[in-house]
């Protein structure tokens, strides 16, 4: 037999979820599937970062993003930070067939206008709105309590901006995330942005 089944390969990469996700990215034969697996990879990296909030609470936006990009690179994903694409986008992930997934990342300062500015950079500056490049992410790092409330308020704020044709849906991968879709300014094609949360809040209540 010159084949190895998925089962045999998964056994080889057992307990290595990053490699399993990498295999899924490699076997993604269309952009939607590829982007979905990129989202899984981003979630996996962010879960690792969520494990030690006390070490990350004081870190700035760029430091956090560089760490995220490094974790993605370790999963063999072609991610770069501060790449020049109509400006300097925080995260650019490239794949086969010129697939792109771009993301802007902001450390939340309880200022939703600040988040909006970041979203509009992604929307109107960095993304092309072309096929194979019309899905991306908006990452919110927060060192405040209850990131679920932050994301809910951010979704409300975005909705209040009444961006033409924008609709919202819940994220099937992660209930702290949500997705917005609206016609891209340049191309009119739907731009899908997944709004992703990382809580680095740390305030243990066990001290006397």
């Amino acid at each position: 037999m010159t084949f190895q089944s998925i089962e045999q390969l998964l056994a080889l990469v057992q307990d290595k979820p990053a490699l399993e996700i990498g295999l899924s990215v490699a076997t993604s034969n269309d952009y939607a599937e590829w982007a979905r697996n990129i989202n899984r990879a981003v979630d996996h990296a962010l879960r690792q970062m969520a494990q030690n909030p006390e070490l990350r609470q004081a870190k700035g936006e760029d430091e956090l993003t560089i760490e995220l990009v490094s974790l993605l690179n370790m999963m063999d994903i072609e991610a770069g930070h501060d790449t020049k694409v109509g400006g300097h986008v925080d995260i650019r992930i490239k794949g086969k067939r010129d697939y792109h997934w771009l993301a802007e990342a902001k450390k939340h300062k309880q200022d939703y206008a600040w988040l909006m500015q970041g979203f509009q950079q992604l929307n109107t500056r960095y993304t092309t709105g072309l096929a194979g490049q019309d899905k991306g992410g908006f990452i919110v790092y927060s060192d405040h309590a209850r990131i679920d409330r932050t994301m809910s308020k951010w979704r409300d704020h975005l909705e209040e901006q009444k961006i033409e044709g924008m609709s919202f849906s819940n994220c099937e991968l992660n209930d702290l995330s949500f997705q917005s879709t609206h016609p891209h300014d340049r191309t009119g094609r739907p731009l899908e942005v997944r709004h992703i949360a990382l809580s680095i809040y740390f305030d243990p209540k066990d001290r006397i």
Partner: protein
Amino acid sequence: MPSVEELIREFRERWGDHPSAQLSVAILERLATLPDDQLRMLTFISFKNVLGYPSVDELLIRAVMLLANSSVHALDAKLLFIDDDDAEYELDPAELEDARKEGALAHPVTGALIGDYERKVFPFFVPSDRLIGARAHA
């Protein structure tokens, strides 16, 4: 369309420090010279064999994945489903994704649900249009 040498240079620029980089480059070099009939269905085992590499391990898997997944894009990954009657069907990755969600794969013809589908689905690779173009350069 880049030549194979240019593909290798592009790969080294982006992934030169990767632990699997040497293996990926060795694969590219072999793919440049293999006859067409040996490129129709490349598996992890065929990569192991053409390189004379001891086993299919994490380094080899990552080396192949880099070539399929990165913007170098020398390989296209595909999936083959072989049923109990040894009939072969190429599977769309979305069908595998659905199977993962549902816990069973729908047989492409009969629609019968297959619980142990991961034993019957086999990844394989073919040269991408980029690699075919690069081979034509030589």
